[in-house]
């Protein structure tokens, strides 16, 4: 068997195992949240009778282990269950929210990843000169500002003062692709500003590291142009660390955007999860937790696999 394939298979198996462990953790975690789902659903308007009625109906009196295996069994056949609070089918609701989140994440990724890598390459090319310093200073400044602040600034300028883009990122099924793109422009821009610096700095550092190597010197002595050296000789050898940080940031774009969703009132997964945590809607919290974990693990797997495939030493071990 090809050793690279074997490595990849190992990674996949490990990922699945990790996911199983995470499912147990998620389940245990949701059991120790303070408060009670029936109380949270009824809020201040709960009476002892209505509480008892609701608890009975929600099956909260079953032992935890039984509920864990019921839940796990359901997930294996693609059934995420129904929300305790609204009685809605979770798979359906999550599907809608997840596609919204993925849409926003993809728009942000499509803008930020090429931009970050390009800026990283430019920074290396003009190392320690003004373009490098300008790029580093501005991206580091934008990552240093909290994302809600960036979001509010963009709203004030582009939505309230100039009126170019909507302050509410509302998307629904009836909208055309370009209308959706316009709606999510400001949150995507916010996310871009938040993740740009990390990827750009990593690209710069990884390539600079490679630039110390003997073969770069050889390329220079051959008389190649400096940008060509960076793009053709240094970048391919720096891909592994870059892809790792890119995947980490993509995972963040999917699972860490709740603040941006709240500011732009975007109907994504984060907002959906927070609503259900505050209502102790355990099945939904568990489903969202598992999906987030799967995305996180999945993206890291991709990073691992790409690192393996781009590294000749791992591809052809002695």
């Amino acid at each position, binding site marked *: 068997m090809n050793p690279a394939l074997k490595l990849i298979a190992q990674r996949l198996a490990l990922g699945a195992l990790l996911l199983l462990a995470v499912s147990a953790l998620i389940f245990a975690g949701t059991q120790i949240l303070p408060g009670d789902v029936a109380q949270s659903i*009824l*809020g201040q308007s709960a009476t002892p009778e209505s509480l008892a009625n609701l608890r009975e109906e929600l099956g909260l009196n079953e032992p935890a282990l039984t509920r864990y295996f019921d839940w796990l069994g359901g997930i294996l056949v693609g059934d995420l269950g129904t929300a305790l609070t*609204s009685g809605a089918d979770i798979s359906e609701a999550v599907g809608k929210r997840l596609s919204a989140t993925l849409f926003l994440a993809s728009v942000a990724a499509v803008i930020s990843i090429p931009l970050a890598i390009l800026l990283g390459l430019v920074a290396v090319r003009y190392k320690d000169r003004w373009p490098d310093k300008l790029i580093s200073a501005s991206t580091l400044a934008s990552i240093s500002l909290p994302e809600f602040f960036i979001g509010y600034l963009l709203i004030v300028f582009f939505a309230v003062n100039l009126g170019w883009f*909507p302050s*509410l990122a509302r998307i629904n099924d009836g909208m055309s692709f370009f209308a959706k793109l316009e709606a999510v422009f400001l949150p995507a821009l916010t996310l871009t500003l938040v993740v740009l610096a990390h990827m750009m700095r990593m690209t710069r550092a990884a390539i600079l590291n490679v630039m110390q190597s003997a073969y770069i010197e050889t390329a220079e002595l051959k008389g190649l142009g400096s940008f060509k050296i960076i793009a053709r000789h240094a970048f391919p050898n720096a891909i592994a660390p870059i892809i790792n940080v890119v995947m980490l940031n993509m995972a963040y774009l999917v699972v860490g955007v709740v603040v941006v969703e709240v500011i732009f009132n975007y109907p994504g997964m984060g907002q959906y999860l927070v*609503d259900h945590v505050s*209502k102790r809607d355990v099945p939904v919290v568990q489903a969202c937790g598992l999906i987030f974990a799967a995305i996180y693990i999945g993206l890291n797997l991709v990073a691992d696999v790409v690192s393996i495939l781009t590294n000749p030493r791992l591809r052809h071990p002695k």
Partner: protein
Amino acid sequence: MSDELKYLARMAAAGRLNRRAFMGRAGALGVSAGLAGTMLSSAVYAQGAVKGGTIRVGIQGGSSTDSLDPALATNATAAMLNKLWGECLVELNADGGLDLRVAEEYSSSPNAQTWTFRIRDGITFHNGQPLTAEDVLATMERHAGEDSQSGALGLLQGIDSMRAEGRDFIIELGSPNADLPYLMSDYHLTIQPNGGKDDPANPIGSGPYVLKEHEAGVRTVFEKNADFWDADLGNAETIELLVINDDTARVAALQSGQVHMANRVPPRVASLVGRAPNLTVHSEPSAGHYVFIMHANTAPFDNKDLRLALKYAINREEMVEKILFGNGSVGNDTPINAAYPLFEAMEQRTYDPEKAAFHFRESGHEGSILLRTSDNSFPGAPDASQLFQQSAAAAGITLDIRREPNDGYWSEVWNNQPFCTSYWGGRPTQDMMYSTAYLSTADWNDTRFFNEQFDQLLVAARGELNQDTRRQMYADMGTIVSEEGGLICPMFNNYIDATSDEVAGWGPSKGFDLMNYMAPMKMWVVG
């Protein structure tokens, strides 16, 4: 007032002068911005309602966990939805009285124990089915039933039996209650076909709007119900509700013109929002109040002197000024204010460190007192707790503040811990407010207030049909709660809503914010 100003207001209302220009000209004539704004809105009102168009509402208080079952409505969005697609027997009006909706008249036996509601003829549900007294009966049965999870279950507990006779729906009470019709205005008690027993979360009602699209906690779209029985109610052709829970996002949506109205403008930005040329802020007195609650049966709060010490140790004016930014009024340690019918003012308790110190000594209590608070117990609760800590310190009383997480506050702290911050929304009548939280047997007796004399007065007042006697009884109850109770009520909060000048028709109301949640249907798009 000059004729020129009136002329200008008419011009502006007719759209021949924009609002900014009008405000500028009015300012030049020496009229304050507030007065000019009022003149403009009354001139717009005089033009009459305009039918058609789309009204978009940004609303706080909605979640993706919300069900469409009216029985389970707990927040502003759910209540507004109920009122758009459904209707109750009666509706609270701006004078604190009741407007007839599904009921065309109601009457009681002389002892206020048997109530008869005559159901309006010719009302149909959105599915074309006629609305009958049987549907009303089924609705009330569902909410009052033993396995009910309805938010209105507590209200309906005094009912002995109910029946439908022809067009009449009849309620027999176990004991007299002169306020029973008010209970029927509760937004949970939306009339559904067969009471919603078959499909509780199906939004088929008899309301002025038909629900077209709905995504819980995100967006709901309504269209005018062409068959609605009352041609006066409902102006816009389409109403779109957008749930925007973030304060800043809601205000920005209003400023950038994405919504026409928004509720719960934060007090600290209300005056800034009002300065925007295209927006009007409506700060309306309400019966809602922000409170500190002590369990009157738990040490050390079981000591009347200690309770009085804390009541004298709070600076109410300072709270109204610094927590509400002036958008409210001082409380008097009762849950009742002038928003209620039959309200009788009593002597105002004021901040008095000496009296507080005296009562604190009398109580014999040593050491500090633990106050629990959280951000969501009311807006600014941690700040208010600190103000309380400082004003109490001047009287020699040490308050320790513990900040609890928002999460789980209502299940773990409120109604569990002996001293914490909380809030109450108002109720339509004094009886409902007192029965909900101050009667010894009340489920939410969050001050653990057990007073026989108070209970007797409360029950007696329900059967008292002489308004003057009743007024006196409520005044006596207020005195008892203020003297003996565990409630420290420093302030009544205003509802702060804002509307853009693309809509008109704002008017006074009682009940909840956004004109008792009816602003979307009562206001109209300016031509």
